[in-house]
């Protein structure tokens, strides 16, 4: 198994604020990699740098041996990276099926003329796309909501729908931004199973998560960010004992919430 994503000395500067400074890490193919850190540590910024929302001030991101810094979000999706959002961003007035269909469309080739003249390829893609979208809904357990508008789904189902939509684009690397946020314990258990199932199907997962129980239980390896710096990197059990990590979580007020979760995890 080789390296699928290589983040090399990525720095992101917003005016006078340094959101990320020289962050390095590598993700191996087929693993679940956790990116953790207190609020404001730069995790989502890291996501945005990987997915082309931001162009890093310095450093490079390499995916499967190809430099992807500076590419547009849609190009990055085509290369094989897709993401979900911390604040759910579905297409609220499209049905669940249509939401996933938009993701699936990323692998389709029909252009405007093909659509206007209903080319054979267009017909085939419409047929196969719908089948694939239905299959993905089944995969995340939302088949019965296929024709409901996304905004009418429950919170946990919306999170799952976002994952299905991202999987629709056929990613090799899936970025999940706090997928367990706002879920109840039952939903969280379901989510853990889903993430493992996704990994087992051959998709590498990069996970941002606040819930230590979820992230430490799931991840093969983790990187810890604090104030835009990478302060720890390695196996979850090693990282958890790292004094710098404990200090980052306990030392700052912002990390208090996560730290209490962490101590609960350690107690368990």
């Amino acid at each position, binding site marked *: 198994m080789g390296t699928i994503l290589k983040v090399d000395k990525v720095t992101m500067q917003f005016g006078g604020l340094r959101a990320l400074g020289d962050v390095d890490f590598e993700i191996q193919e087929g693993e679940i990699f956790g990116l953790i850190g207190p609020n*404001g540590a730069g995790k989502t910024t890291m996501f945005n740098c990987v997915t082309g929302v931001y162009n890093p001030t310095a450093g490079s991101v390499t995916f499967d041996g190809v430099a992807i810094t500076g590419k547009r979000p849609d190009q990055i999706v085509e290369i094989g990276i897709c993401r979900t959002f911390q604040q759910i961003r579905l297409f609220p007035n*499209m049905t669940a099926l249509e939401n996933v269909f938009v993701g699936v469309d990323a692998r389709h080739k029909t252009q405007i003329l093909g659509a206007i003249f209903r080319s054979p390829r267009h017909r085939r893609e419409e047929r196969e796309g719908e089948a694939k979208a239905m299959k993905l809904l089944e995969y995340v357990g939302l088949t019965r909501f296929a024709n409901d508008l996304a905004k009418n789904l429950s919170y946990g189902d919306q999170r799952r729908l976002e994952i299905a939509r991202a999987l629709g684009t056929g990613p090799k690397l899936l970025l999940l931004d706090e997928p367990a946020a706002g879920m109840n314990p039952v939903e969280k258990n379901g989510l853990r199973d889903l993430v493992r199932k996704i990994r087992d199907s051959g998709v590498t997962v990069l996970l941002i998560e606040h819930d230590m129980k979820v992230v430490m239980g799931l991840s093969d390896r983790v990187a810890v960010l604090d104030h835009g710096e990478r302060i720890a990197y390695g196996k979850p059990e090693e990282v958890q004992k790292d004094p710098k990590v404990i200090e980052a979580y306990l030392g700052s007020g912002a990390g208090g919430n996560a730290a209490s979760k962490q101590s609960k995890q350690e107690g368990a």
Partner: protein
Amino acid sequence: MAAVLKNPGIKRFSDNVAKFWFAMGPFRYLVAAGLMILVPVIMERGYLPEWTLLGYLDGLYGTNILFTTGVWILLALGLNVVVGMAGLLDLGYVAFLMLGAYTTALFTESGSAEQFHFAILNPWLALPIALVVAMLAGVLLGVPTLRLRGDYLAIVTLGFHEIVRQTMNNLEVTNGSRGIFGIPHPSVPVTGELGLDGTPYWQWLLVPAIILAVIMIKHLENSRVGRYWTALREDEVAAAAMGVPVTKMKVLAFVIGASTSGVAGWIYAVKLNYISPNNFPLLQSILVLCAVVIGGLGSIAGAVLGAALVIMLPEIVREASGGAEVFGFDIETGRIAVFGVLLIIVMIFRPGGLLAAKRRRVELMEAGAADMVISEAGPDPDETAAPVGQEPVVTEGDDVRAPSEGGEER
């Protein structure tokens, strides 16, 4: 109006009609074409009774109204793609009609001997050129304005209309404010040159153009392209993250939108023989928007109905009242005052328009507090809880949000 449309009996009837209509499959386009040709012929002869309202529009007068209506249906169909489907507010849409019409004039044997021409072609050959010029103008308008959000786009497109109009008004090659005379009529093998009497423009040019435009837009709507447009309208950031090429799709919406009005511009020029900047006041751009909105944003049938209402209704009122004034209101200008009120009423009571598109209906009718954060009552928990897919009022993110176009509200 809204109450009438909600009446269960009428609703059942209209549902049944719709069911029957769609059961015909592709044949419905043929049936539509047949009706669209048959009814005007009867109307023109004056055989329709007045209670059909169309009965008021007989003779040459009716033919001319019908022609204008046809041109406007094409315009409304195109603008509906831009505003209704892709969600880009364009207040200068008639600029494309102008460009189509002027291109036609400059590529055919128009004007006096001194009139400038790029080439002198058969009027039919000017059609593809007018189409391409309008579409290129769509690219020209689309590319620089893509990064602008809704309100800014509105003013820039409005400016675009004025830029085009004033340019036509000031340039020597377009004969300035005097306009260009003598644009030739095209001829059809069956009937010879299309003259001014009867409904030839309607049946030979407008009906085919409208049907083709409807088919094109319908096909696009139910395809990857249409889904991408909807996704963009719903949430641009999420769309980009799902692989939607934002720039390309927006430009494409402008281009497809412009295409119908390029054709409309050609038809307009070859029918009237004469065009001048005064034929295209800014007001028209806004009236097309009225047509699309009243008919129903995103709804193809709505665009057709809206255009017909905006053009035909004032004329019917004029004929029915038998004068140029009704209650002291001049028909030509007073109708705009009436449409103004109608726009407000539609936006308040039926924001999806008269024939709301299925998706839009849900989106606009339900209290989606999403875009508007100010409410009459105090903040209630449902509203502050950042509805799905919208930029939340307070970002509880763990990262600094850089000012990016994506972060803006639509």
